[in-house]
Protein backbone atom coordinates (compact mmCIF):
# COMPACT_ATOMS: atom_id res chain seq x y z
CA UNK A 1 0.00 0.00 0.00
CA UNK A 2 2.67 2.40 0.88
CA UNK A 3 4.87 3.41 -1.92
CA UNK A 4 2.34 3.57 -4.71
CA UNK A 5 -0.22 5.43 -2.76
CA UNK A 6 1.29 7.97 -0.49
CA UNK A 7 4.97 7.58 -0.37
CA UNK A 8 7.86 7.32 -2.73
CA UNK A 9 6.83 8.53 -6.11
CA UNK A 10 9.74 7.50 -8.22
CA UNK A 11 8.22 4.20 -9.07
CA UNK A 12 4.62 5.10 -9.51
CA UNK A 13 4.88 6.94 -12.78
CA UNK A 14 7.08 4.26 -14.21
CA UNK A 15 4.19 1.92 -13.52
CA UNK A 16 1.76 4.08 -15.40
CA UNK A 17 -0.16 4.65 -12.22
CA UNK A 18 -1.93 7.79 -11.23
CA UNK A 19 0.11 10.68 -9.95
CA UNK A 20 -0.58 10.35 -6.27
CA UNK A 21 -0.27 13.34 -4.04
CA UNK A 22 0.32 13.69 -0.36
CA UNK A 23 -2.83 13.55 1.77
CA UNK A 24 -2.85 17.26 2.49
CA UNK A 25 -3.25 18.08 -1.14
CA UNK A 26 -5.92 15.48 -1.79
CA UNK A 27 -8.84 17.84 -2.31
CA UNK A 28 -7.43 19.13 -5.51
CA UNK A 29 -7.22 15.68 -7.08
CA UNK A 30 -9.59 14.45 -9.68
CA UNK A 31 -11.77 11.44 -9.06
CA UNK A 32 -10.81 8.36 -11.04
CA UNK A 33 -14.18 6.67 -11.33
CA UNK A 34 -12.76 3.36 -12.51
CA UNK A 35 -10.48 3.22 -9.50
CA UNK A 36 -13.41 4.22 -7.34
CA UNK A 37 -15.50 1.37 -8.73
CA UNK A 38 -12.76 -1.13 -8.11
CA UNK A 39 -12.11 0.17 -4.61
CA UNK A 40 -15.78 -0.08 -3.64
CA UNK A 41 -15.66 -3.65 -4.87
CA UNK A 42 -12.47 -4.27 -2.93
CA UNK A 43 -14.02 -2.82 0.19
CA UNK A 44 -16.93 -5.21 -0.14
CA UNK A 45 -14.48 -8.08 -0.67
CA UNK A 46 -12.45 -7.29 2.43
CA UNK A 47 -15.53 -6.89 4.63
CA UNK A 48 -16.62 -10.23 3.19
CA UNK A 49 -13.30 -11.70 4.34
CA UNK A 50 -14.23 -11.01 7.92
CA UNK A 51 -17.94 -11.70 7.89
CA UNK A 52 -18.74 -14.31 6.81
CA UNK A 53 -15.40 -15.70 5.61
CA UNK A 54 -13.24 -15.55 8.72
CA UNK A 55 -16.23 -16.31 10.91
CA UNK A 56 -16.76 -19.48 8.92
CA UNK A 57 -13.11 -20.38 8.84
CA UNK A 58 -12.74 -19.99 12.59
CA UNK A 59 -16.25 -21.15 13.43
CA UNK A 60 -15.72 -24.46 11.70
CA UNK A 61 -12.51 -25.12 13.59
CA UNK A 62 -13.93 -24.91 17.09
CA UNK A 63 -16.21 -27.41 18.74
CA UNK A 64 -19.93 -27.19 18.02
CA UNK A 65 -20.64 -25.80 21.45
CA UNK A 66 -18.50 -22.73 20.76
CA UNK A 67 -19.28 -21.97 17.15
CA UNK A 68 -21.55 -19.04 17.84
CA UNK A 69 -19.18 -17.46 20.32
CA UNK A 70 -16.44 -17.29 17.72
CA UNK A 71 -18.76 -15.94 15.07
CA UNK A 72 -20.02 -13.40 17.58
CA UNK A 73 -16.48 -12.17 18.09
CA UNK A 74 -16.05 -11.43 14.41
CA UNK A 75 -19.38 -9.66 14.24
CA UNK A 76 -19.13 -7.57 17.37
CA UNK A 77 -15.59 -6.54 16.48
CA UNK A 78 -16.88 -5.37 13.11
CA UNK A 79 -19.46 -3.16 14.77
CA UNK A 80 -17.28 -1.72 17.50
CA UNK A 81 -14.35 -0.93 15.25
CA UNK A 82 -16.64 0.73 12.71
CA UNK A 83 -17.98 3.14 15.28
CA UNK A 84 -14.55 3.91 16.68
CA UNK A 85 -13.23 4.43 13.18
CA UNK A 86 -15.79 7.09 12.50
CA UNK A 87 -15.21 8.82 15.83
CA UNK A 88 -11.42 8.94 15.83
CA UNK A 89 -9.84 5.97 14.10
CA UNK A 90 -9.70 7.31 10.58
CA UNK A 91 -8.38 10.63 11.77
CA UNK A 92 -5.65 9.17 13.94
CA UNK A 93 -4.51 6.83 11.19
CA UNK A 94 -4.99 8.91 8.06
CA UNK A 95 -5.54 12.49 9.17
CA UNK A 96 -2.98 15.17 8.64
CA UNK A 97 -0.84 15.10 11.75
CA UNK A 98 1.04 18.21 10.80
CA UNK A 99 4.25 18.38 12.76
CA UNK A 100 3.38 15.14 14.52
CA UNK A 101 2.71 13.34 11.25
CA UNK A 102 5.51 10.91 12.00
CA UNK A 103 3.57 9.67 15.00
CA UNK A 104 -0.14 10.10 14.42
CA UNK A 105 -2.66 11.78 12.17
CA UNK A 106 -4.21 14.00 14.80
CA UNK A 107 -7.90 14.51 15.45
CA UNK A 108 -8.66 16.89 12.64
CA UNK A 109 -10.80 14.35 10.83
CA UNK A 110 -12.55 12.99 13.89
CA UNK A 111 -16.15 12.15 13.04
CA UNK A 112 -15.03 12.29 9.42
CA UNK A 113 -15.05 16.05 9.61
CA UNK A 114 -14.41 17.58 6.24
CA UNK A 115 -14.73 14.32 4.37
CA UNK A 116 -17.54 15.32 2.07
CA UNK A 117 -19.13 13.62 -0.90
CA UNK A 118 -16.69 15.35 -3.21
CA UNK A 119 -13.54 14.72 -1.18
CA UNK A 120 -10.91 12.78 -3.08
CA UNK A 121 -7.85 11.02 -1.72
CA UNK A 122 -5.35 9.11 -3.83
CA UNK A 123 -7.66 9.47 -6.79
CA UNK A 124 -10.70 7.89 -5.17
CA UNK A 125 -13.51 9.22 -3.03
CA UNK A 126 -12.18 9.79 0.44
CA UNK A 127 -15.17 7.94 1.90
CA UNK A 128 -14.19 4.93 -0.17
CA UNK A 129 -10.58 5.31 0.90
CA UNK A 130 -11.70 5.39 4.49
CA UNK A 131 -14.09 2.45 4.14
CA UNK A 132 -11.43 0.33 2.50
CA UNK A 133 -9.02 1.06 5.33
CA UNK A 134 -11.76 0.41 7.87
CA UNK A 135 -12.17 -3.12 6.65
CA UNK A 136 -8.49 -3.74 7.40
CA UNK A 137 -8.92 -2.31 10.87
CA UNK A 138 -11.82 -4.71 11.36
CA UNK A 139 -10.25 -7.92 10.21
CA UNK A 140 -7.03 -7.50 12.19
CA UNK A 141 -8.50 -7.82 15.70
CA UNK A 142 -10.90 -10.41 14.34
CA UNK A 143 -7.91 -12.53 13.36
CA UNK A 144 -6.66 -12.31 16.92
CA UNK A 145 -9.84 -14.03 18.04
CA UNK A 146 -8.36 -17.32 16.91
CA UNK A 147 -5.88 -17.13 19.76
CA UNK A 148 -8.34 -16.89 22.62
CA UNK A 149 -11.19 -18.92 21.16
CA UNK A 150 -13.19 -21.39 23.24
CA UNK A 151 -12.42 -19.88 26.63
CA UNK A 152 -12.71 -16.09 26.67
CA UNK A 153 -15.54 -14.03 28.10
CA UNK A 154 -17.43 -11.99 25.59
CA UNK A 155 -17.12 -8.77 27.54
CA UNK A 156 -13.37 -9.26 27.61
CA UNK A 157 -13.36 -9.41 23.83
CA UNK A 158 -15.08 -6.06 23.64
CA UNK A 159 -12.65 -4.41 26.02
CA UNK A 160 -9.68 -5.91 24.23
CA UNK A 161 -11.04 -4.61 20.94
CA UNK A 162 -11.34 -1.02 22.07
CA UNK A 163 -7.99 -0.86 23.83
CA UNK A 164 -6.01 -2.78 21.27
CA UNK A 165 -7.41 -0.88 18.32
CA UNK A 166 -6.41 2.37 19.98
CA UNK A 167 -3.02 1.43 21.36
CA UNK A 168 -1.77 -0.99 18.76
CA UNK A 169 -3.61 -0.93 15.47
CA UNK A 170 -3.99 2.79 14.90
CA UNK A 171 -0.36 3.75 15.58
CA UNK A 172 1.03 0.97 13.42
CA UNK A 173 -1.43 1.76 10.66
CA UNK A 174 -0.41 5.40 10.68
CA UNK A 175 3.29 4.70 10.81
CA UNK A 176 3.17 2.27 7.89
CA UNK A 177 0.41 3.65 5.66
CA UNK A 178 -0.65 7.03 6.96
CA UNK A 179 2.57 8.92 6.39
CA UNK A 180 4.23 7.96 9.67
CA UNK A 181 7.87 7.35 10.40
CA UNK A 182 8.11 3.80 9.09
CA UNK A 183 6.66 4.84 5.77
CA UNK A 184 8.98 7.79 5.56
CA UNK A 185 11.87 5.48 6.25
CA UNK A 186 10.89 3.46 3.17
CA UNK A 187 9.34 0.48 4.92
CA UNK A 188 7.27 -1.44 2.41
CA UNK A 189 4.15 -3.28 3.44
CA UNK A 190 1.90 -3.41 0.46
CA UNK A 191 -1.25 -4.82 2.04
CA UNK A 192 -0.61 -5.60 5.65
CA UNK A 193 2.12 -8.13 6.33
CA UNK A 194 3.09 -6.16 9.40
CA UNK A 195 0.04 -4.05 10.26
CA UNK A 196 -2.33 -6.98 9.87
CA UNK A 197 -0.60 -10.33 9.99
CA UNK A 198 2.44 -10.00 12.25
CA UNK A 199 0.33 -7.79 14.45
CA UNK A 200 -2.59 -10.19 14.79
CA UNK A 201 -0.35 -13.22 15.13
CA UNK A 202 1.67 -11.70 17.95
CA UNK A 203 -1.44 -10.50 19.74
CA UNK A 204 -2.95 -13.97 19.52
CA UNK A 205 0.19 -15.51 20.94
CA UNK A 206 0.16 -13.01 23.78
CA UNK A 207 -3.46 -13.86 24.47
CA UNK A 208 -2.73 -17.59 24.43
CA UNK A 209 0.10 -17.22 26.89
CA UNK A 210 -1.81 -14.89 29.19
CA UNK A 211 -4.99 -16.95 29.25
CA UNK A 212 -3.50 -20.39 29.50
CA UNK A 213 -4.61 -23.54 27.76
CA UNK A 214 -8.04 -24.91 27.14
CA UNK A 215 -9.06 -27.75 29.39
CA UNK A 216 -7.68 -30.93 27.86
CA UNK A 217 -4.90 -29.37 25.83
CA UNK A 218 -2.67 -30.86 24.51
CA UNK A 219 -3.93 -34.40 25.07
CA UNK A 220 -7.50 -34.13 23.91
CA UNK A 221 -8.24 -33.75 20.22
CA UNK A 222 -10.21 -30.57 19.68
CA UNK A 223 -11.55 -31.70 16.37
CA UNK A 224 -12.99 -29.07 14.05
CA UNK A 225 -16.73 -29.45 14.36
CA UNK A 226 -17.41 -28.52 10.79
CA UNK A 227 -14.59 -28.66 8.27
CA UNK A 228 -16.97 -27.78 5.48
CA UNK A 229 -17.38 -24.37 7.11
CA UNK A 230 -13.64 -23.97 7.43
CA UNK A 231 -13.33 -24.83 3.78
CA UNK A 232 -16.00 -22.40 2.68
CA UNK A 233 -14.41 -19.70 4.77
CA UNK A 234 -11.01 -20.44 3.29
CA UNK A 235 -12.35 -20.29 -0.25
CA UNK A 236 -14.01 -16.96 0.48
CA UNK A 237 -10.77 -15.68 1.97
CA UNK A 238 -8.92 -16.58 -1.18
CA UNK A 239 -11.39 -14.69 -3.33
CA UNK A 240 -11.60 -11.81 -0.89
CA UNK A 241 -7.83 -11.48 -0.86
CA UNK A 242 -8.05 -10.23 -4.45
CA UNK A 243 -9.65 -7.15 -2.91
CA UNK A 244 -7.30 -7.12 0.04
CA UNK A 245 -4.12 -7.10 -2.02
CA UNK A 246 -5.52 -5.96 -5.35
CA UNK A 247 -7.35 -3.11 -3.66
CA UNK A 248 -4.18 -2.02 -1.91
CA UNK A 249 -3.02 -0.63 -5.25
CA UNK A 250 -5.79 1.96 -4.84
CA UNK A 251 -6.17 1.84 -8.57
CA UNK A 252 -7.72 -0.34 -11.26
CA UNK A 253 -4.47 -0.57 -13.17
CA UNK A 254 -1.77 -3.10 -13.91
CA UNK A 255 -0.39 -2.81 -10.42
CA UNK A 256 -3.66 -4.13 -9.04
CA UNK A 257 -3.73 -6.87 -11.62
CA UNK A 258 -0.17 -7.93 -10.91
CA UNK A 259 -0.80 -7.93 -7.17
CA UNK A 260 -3.79 -10.20 -7.68
CA UNK A 261 -1.79 -12.61 -9.77
CA UNK A 262 1.10 -12.77 -7.32
CA UNK A 263 -1.40 -13.26 -4.51
CA UNK A 264 -3.15 -16.05 -6.31
CA UNK A 265 0.06 -17.90 -7.02
CA UNK A 266 1.15 -17.66 -3.40
CA UNK A 267 -2.13 -19.17 -2.30
CA UNK A 268 -1.69 -22.06 -4.70
CA UNK A 269 1.91 -22.55 -3.65
CA UNK A 270 1.25 -22.53 0.09
CA UNK A 271 -1.60 -24.97 -0.32
CA UNK A 272 0.47 -27.44 -2.26
CA UNK A 273 3.51 -27.50 -0.01
CA UNK A 274 1.47 -27.84 3.19
CA UNK A 275 -0.43 -30.65 1.51
CA UNK A 276 2.81 -32.35 0.53
CA UNK A 277 4.27 -31.95 4.01
CA UNK A 278 1.29 -33.85 5.39
CA UNK A 279 1.39 -36.44 2.70
CA UNK A 280 5.03 -37.16 3.36
CA UNK A 281 4.90 -37.01 7.14
CA UNK A 282 1.48 -38.51 7.86
CA UNK A 283 0.74 -40.48 4.77
CA UNK A 284 -2.36 -38.53 3.88
CA UNK A 285 -3.16 -34.99 2.79
CA UNK A 286 -6.01 -33.30 4.61
CA UNK A 287 -8.51 -30.63 3.72
CA UNK A 288 -7.59 -28.67 6.82
CA UNK A 289 -3.98 -28.88 5.76
CA UNK A 290 -4.44 -27.60 2.25
CA UNK A 291 -6.58 -24.67 3.32
CA UNK A 292 -4.21 -23.76 6.12
CA UNK A 293 -1.37 -23.76 3.63
CA UNK A 294 -3.44 -21.40 1.52
CA UNK A 295 -3.79 -18.95 4.39
CA UNK A 296 -0.09 -19.24 5.08
CA UNK A 297 0.71 -18.46 1.46
CA UNK A 298 -1.66 -15.53 1.38
CA UNK A 299 -0.58 -14.03 4.66
CA UNK A 300 3.05 -14.31 3.68
CA UNK A 301 2.70 -12.76 0.24
CA UNK A 302 0.57 -9.89 1.48
CA UNK A 303 3.33 -7.40 2.26
CA UNK A 304 5.11 -8.21 -0.97
CA UNK A 305 2.17 -8.58 -3.30
CA UNK A 306 2.47 -5.20 -5.01
CA UNK A 307 6.18 -5.31 -5.50
CA UNK A 308 6.74 -8.70 -7.06
CA UNK A 309 5.82 -10.81 -10.06
CA UNK A 310 3.72 -13.98 -10.15
CA UNK A 311 6.74 -16.27 -9.98
CA UNK A 312 7.91 -14.44 -6.89
CA UNK A 313 4.45 -14.95 -5.45
CA UNK A 314 4.55 -18.64 -6.20
CA UNK A 315 7.95 -19.10 -4.58
CA UNK A 316 6.93 -17.15 -1.50
CA UNK A 317 3.85 -19.32 -1.25
CA UNK A 318 5.77 -22.55 -1.63
CA UNK A 319 8.13 -21.53 1.16
CA UNK A 320 5.32 -20.31 3.38
CA UNK A 321 3.56 -23.67 3.28
CA UNK A 322 6.60 -25.44 4.64
CA UNK A 323 7.62 -22.80 7.12
CA UNK A 324 4.21 -22.28 8.69
CA UNK A 325 3.64 -26.02 8.85
CA UNK A 326 6.70 -26.38 11.02
CA UNK A 327 5.92 -23.31 13.05
CA UNK A 328 2.49 -24.75 13.85
CA UNK A 329 4.00 -28.04 14.84
CA UNK A 330 6.51 -26.39 17.14
CA UNK A 331 4.11 -24.04 18.89
CA UNK A 332 1.56 -26.79 19.50
CA UNK A 333 3.69 -29.84 20.01
CA UNK A 334 6.98 -28.57 21.34
CA UNK A 335 6.14 -25.39 23.23
CA UNK A 336 2.62 -26.54 24.14
CA UNK A 337 1.18 -23.09 23.71
CA UNK A 338 -2.55 -23.25 23.11
CA UNK A 339 -2.99 -20.62 20.41
CA UNK A 340 -6.35 -22.20 19.70
CA UNK A 341 -6.58 -21.68 15.97
CA UNK A 342 -2.85 -21.31 15.24
CA UNK A 343 -2.91 -17.61 14.50
CA UNK A 344 0.70 -16.97 15.40
CA UNK A 345 2.37 -19.80 13.48
CA UNK A 346 0.33 -19.04 10.37
CA UNK A 347 -0.19 -15.28 10.33
CA UNK A 348 2.59 -14.17 12.64
CA UNK A 349 5.37 -16.32 11.26
CA UNK A 350 4.11 -15.90 7.72
CA UNK A 351 3.87 -12.16 8.19
CA UNK A 352 7.39 -11.81 9.53
CA UNK A 353 8.81 -13.96 6.80
CA UNK A 354 6.87 -12.15 4.10
CA UNK A 355 7.81 -8.74 5.39
CA UNK A 356 11.46 -9.62 5.10
CA UNK A 357 11.09 -11.32 1.74
CA UNK A 358 9.41 -8.19 0.42
CA UNK A 359 12.84 -6.66 0.38
CA UNK A 360 14.21 -9.60 -1.55
CA UNK A 361 11.61 -10.39 -4.17
CA UNK A 362 11.24 -6.78 -5.23
CA UNK A 363 14.50 -7.31 -7.08
CA UNK A 364 13.97 -7.12 -10.84
CA UNK A 365 16.21 -10.13 -11.22
CA UNK A 366 13.63 -12.10 -9.30
CA UNK A 367 10.74 -10.79 -11.35
CA UNK A 368 10.04 -7.94 -8.94
CA UNK A 369 9.19 -4.38 -9.76
CA UNK A 370 12.37 -2.87 -8.42
CA UNK A 371 13.52 -0.63 -5.60
CA UNK A 372 13.16 3.08 -5.03
CA UNK A 373 16.11 5.14 -6.09
CA UNK A 374 19.24 4.60 -4.06
CA UNK A 375 17.88 1.54 -2.32
CA UNK A 376 19.59 -1.84 -2.48
CA UNK A 377 18.26 -5.24 -1.56
CA UNK A 378 20.29 -5.30 1.61
CA UNK A 379 19.21 -1.87 2.75
CA UNK A 380 15.60 -2.63 1.96
CA UNK A 381 15.71 -5.88 3.92
CA UNK A 382 17.18 -3.92 6.80
CA UNK A 383 14.32 -1.47 6.77
CA UNK A 384 11.91 -4.36 6.51
CA UNK A 385 13.42 -5.89 9.63
CA UNK A 386 12.99 -2.65 11.52
CA UNK A 387 9.34 -2.60 10.55
CA UNK A 388 8.82 -6.18 11.60
CA UNK A 389 10.54 -5.76 14.95
CA UNK A 390 8.64 -2.57 15.65
CA UNK A 391 5.37 -4.32 14.95
CA UNK A 392 6.25 -7.22 17.20
CA UNK A 393 7.25 -4.91 20.02
CA UNK A 394 4.20 -2.68 19.84
CA UNK A 395 1.90 -5.65 19.50
CA UNK A 396 3.29 -7.56 22.47
CA UNK A 397 3.18 -4.53 24.73
CA UNK A 398 -0.19 -3.24 23.60
CA UNK A 399 -1.79 -6.66 23.63
CA UNK A 400 -0.60 -7.24 27.15
CA UNK A 401 -2.19 -3.98 28.24
CA UNK A 402 -5.40 -4.73 26.40
CA UNK A 403 -5.88 -8.20 27.85
CA UNK A 404 -4.79 -7.06 31.28
CA UNK A 405 -7.40 -4.33 31.15
CA UNK A 406 -10.04 -6.85 30.19
CA UNK A 407 -8.91 -9.15 32.95
CA UNK A 408 -9.16 -6.45 35.58
CA UNK A 409 -12.49 -5.13 34.41
CA UNK A 410 -14.46 -8.31 33.75
CA UNK A 411 -12.13 -11.28 33.91
CA UNK A 412 -10.62 -12.93 30.88
CA UNK A 413 -11.78 -16.51 31.09
CA UNK A 414 -15.00 -18.32 31.80
CA UNK A 415 -14.73 -20.90 34.55
CA UNK A 416 -14.00 -24.55 33.87
CA UNK A 417 -17.55 -25.76 34.02
CA UNK A 418 -18.67 -23.05 31.63
CA UNK A 419 -15.82 -23.93 29.32
CA UNK A 420 -16.99 -27.54 29.30
CA UNK A 421 -20.60 -26.60 28.79
CA UNK A 422 -19.65 -24.41 25.86
CA UNK A 423 -19.64 -20.67 25.40
CA UNK A 424 -22.69 -20.56 23.17
CA UNK A 425 -25.11 -21.60 25.85
CA UNK A 426 -23.26 -20.05 28.73
CA UNK A 427 -22.65 -16.62 27.23
CA UNK A 428 -25.31 -16.26 24.58
CA UNK A 429 -28.18 -18.54 25.56
CA UNK A 430 -28.12 -20.06 22.12
CA UNK A 431 -26.93 -23.12 20.32
CA UNK A 432 -25.52 -23.21 16.82
CA UNK A 433 -27.58 -26.13 15.62
CA UNK A 434 -30.99 -27.53 16.51
CA UNK A 435 -31.24 -30.08 13.77
CA UNK A 436 -33.66 -32.46 15.44
CA UNK A 437 -36.98 -31.31 14.09
Amino acid at each position, binding site marked *: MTIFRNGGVALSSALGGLALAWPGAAQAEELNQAANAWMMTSTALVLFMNIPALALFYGGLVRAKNVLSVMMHCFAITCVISVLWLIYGYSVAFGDGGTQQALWGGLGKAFHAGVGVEAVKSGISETVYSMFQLTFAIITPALVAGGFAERIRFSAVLIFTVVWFTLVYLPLCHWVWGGGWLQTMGFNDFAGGSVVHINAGVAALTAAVMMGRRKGFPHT*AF*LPHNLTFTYIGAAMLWVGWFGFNGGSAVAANGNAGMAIMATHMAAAGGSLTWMLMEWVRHGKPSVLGIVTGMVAGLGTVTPASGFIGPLGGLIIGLMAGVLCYWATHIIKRKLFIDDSLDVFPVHGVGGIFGTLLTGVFAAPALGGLGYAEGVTMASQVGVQAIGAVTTIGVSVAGSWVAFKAADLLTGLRVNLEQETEGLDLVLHDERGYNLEY
Partner: protein
Amino acid sequence: MKFIIAIIKPFKLDEVRRALTILGARGMTVTETRGFGRQKGHTELYRGAEYQVDFLPKLKIELAVPEELADQAVAAIMEAARTGRIGDGKIFVMNLESAYRIRTGESGPEVL
Protein backbone atom coordinates in the same frame (compact mmCIF):
# COMPACT_ATOMS: atom_id res chain seq x y z
CA MET B 1 -40.52 -62.53 23.43
CA LYS B 2 -36.94 -61.33 23.15
CA PHE B 3 -35.46 -57.90 22.74
CA ILE B 4 -32.32 -58.01 20.62
CA ILE B 5 -29.79 -55.21 20.60
CA ALA B 6 -27.13 -55.45 17.92
CA ILE B 7 -24.19 -53.09 17.57
CA ILE B 8 -22.91 -53.27 14.00
CA LYS B 9 -20.67 -51.49 11.54
CA PRO B 10 -22.71 -48.79 9.81
CA PHE B 11 -22.21 -50.02 6.28
CA LYS B 12 -23.64 -53.41 7.16
CA LEU B 13 -27.12 -52.05 7.77
CA ASP B 14 -28.52 -52.94 4.39
CA GLU B 15 -27.34 -56.51 4.55
CA VAL B 16 -28.61 -57.00 8.07
CA ARG B 17 -31.97 -55.59 7.22
CA ARG B 18 -32.24 -57.83 4.20
CA ALA B 19 -31.33 -60.90 6.21
CA LEU B 20 -33.90 -60.07 8.84
CA THR B 21 -36.59 -59.37 6.31
CA ILE B 22 -36.01 -62.75 4.70
CA LEU B 23 -36.43 -64.26 8.12
CA GLY B 24 -39.82 -62.61 8.44
CA ALA B 25 -39.01 -59.65 10.70
CA ARG B 26 -41.34 -56.86 9.83
CA GLY B 27 -39.87 -54.06 11.84
CA MET B 28 -36.78 -52.78 13.58
CA THR B 29 -35.40 -49.55 14.94
CA VAL B 30 -31.97 -48.17 14.14
CA THR B 31 -29.96 -45.60 16.05
CA GLU B 32 -26.60 -44.01 15.42
CA THR B 33 -24.16 -44.50 18.22
CA ARG B 34 -20.49 -44.39 18.87
CA GLY B 35 -18.69 -47.46 20.04
CA PHE B 36 -15.66 -47.96 22.16
CA GLY B 37 -14.00 -51.36 22.14
CA ARG B 38 -11.05 -53.41 21.03
CA GLN B 39 -11.10 -51.89 17.57
CA LYS B 40 -8.78 -48.93 17.50
CA GLY B 41 -10.25 -45.66 16.36
CA HIS B 42 -8.89 -43.80 13.42
CA THR B 43 -6.33 -41.04 13.41
CA GLU B 44 -7.41 -37.54 12.59
CA LEU B 45 -5.02 -34.95 11.29
CA TYR B 46 -5.16 -31.47 12.69
CA ARG B 47 -2.65 -29.16 11.16
CA GLY B 48 0.25 -31.47 11.41
CA ALA B 49 -0.73 -32.91 14.76
CA GLU B 50 -2.26 -36.36 14.84
CA TYR B 51 -5.02 -37.38 17.21
CA GLN B 52 -6.43 -40.76 17.99
CA VAL B 53 -10.22 -40.84 17.87
CA ASP B 54 -11.40 -43.59 20.18
CA PHE B 55 -15.09 -43.67 19.52
CA LEU B 56 -16.11 -45.18 16.25
CA PRO B 57 -19.41 -44.70 14.49
CA LYS B 58 -21.64 -47.73 14.95
CA LEU B 59 -25.28 -48.49 14.41
CA LYS B 60 -27.51 -49.99 17.05
CA ILE B 61 -30.35 -52.16 15.83
CA GLU B 62 -33.20 -52.84 18.22
CA LEU B 63 -35.42 -55.70 17.29
CA ALA B 64 -38.22 -57.29 19.24
CA VAL B 65 -38.98 -60.86 18.16
CA PRO B 66 -41.22 -63.69 19.22
CA GLU B 67 -39.41 -66.21 21.44
CA GLU B 68 -39.11 -68.81 18.74
CA LEU B 69 -37.46 -66.50 16.23
CA ALA B 70 -34.80 -65.18 18.56
CA ASP B 71 -32.04 -67.65 17.78
CA GLN B 72 -32.53 -67.43 14.06
CA ALA B 73 -32.54 -63.66 14.24
CA VAL B 74 -29.29 -63.64 16.17
CA ALA B 75 -27.76 -66.03 13.68
CA ALA B 76 -28.96 -63.98 10.74
CA ILE B 77 -27.56 -60.75 12.12
CA MET B 78 -24.32 -62.45 12.99
CA GLU B 79 -23.83 -63.69 9.50
CA ALA B 80 -24.89 -60.55 7.70
CA ALA B 81 -22.87 -58.18 9.88
CA ARG B 82 -19.67 -60.12 9.87
CA THR B 83 -16.58 -58.89 8.05
CA GLY B 84 -14.27 -60.98 10.20
CA ARG B 85 -12.30 -57.94 11.24
CA ILE B 86 -12.14 -56.51 14.69
CA GLY B 87 -14.98 -54.14 15.53
CA ASP B 88 -17.77 -56.11 13.88
CA GLY B 89 -19.84 -55.61 17.00
CA LYS B 90 -21.94 -57.41 19.53
CA ILE B 91 -25.42 -58.81 19.92
CA PHE B 92 -27.24 -58.65 23.23
CA VAL B 93 -30.45 -60.52 23.98
CA MET B 94 -32.82 -59.63 26.78
CA ASN B 95 -36.19 -60.78 27.89
CA LEU B 96 -39.15 -58.80 26.63
CA GLU B 97 -42.17 -58.91 28.90
CA SER B 98 -44.75 -57.24 26.74
CA ALA B 99 -45.12 -55.46 23.45
CA TYR B 100 -47.87 -53.20 22.19
CA ARG B 101 -48.86 -51.71 18.87
CA ILE B 102 -49.81 -48.11 19.48
CA ARG B 103 -52.07 -47.80 16.47
CA THR B 104 -54.42 -50.61 17.49
CA GLY B 105 -53.72 -51.12 21.17
CA GLU B 106 -53.05 -54.81 20.53
CA SER B 107 -50.34 -56.55 22.49
CA GLY B 108 -48.33 -59.75 22.32
CA PRO B 109 -45.95 -61.34 19.85
CA GLU B 110 -48.28 -60.74 16.92
CA VAL B 111 -47.63 -57.00 16.98
CA LEU B 112 -43.96 -57.49 16.12
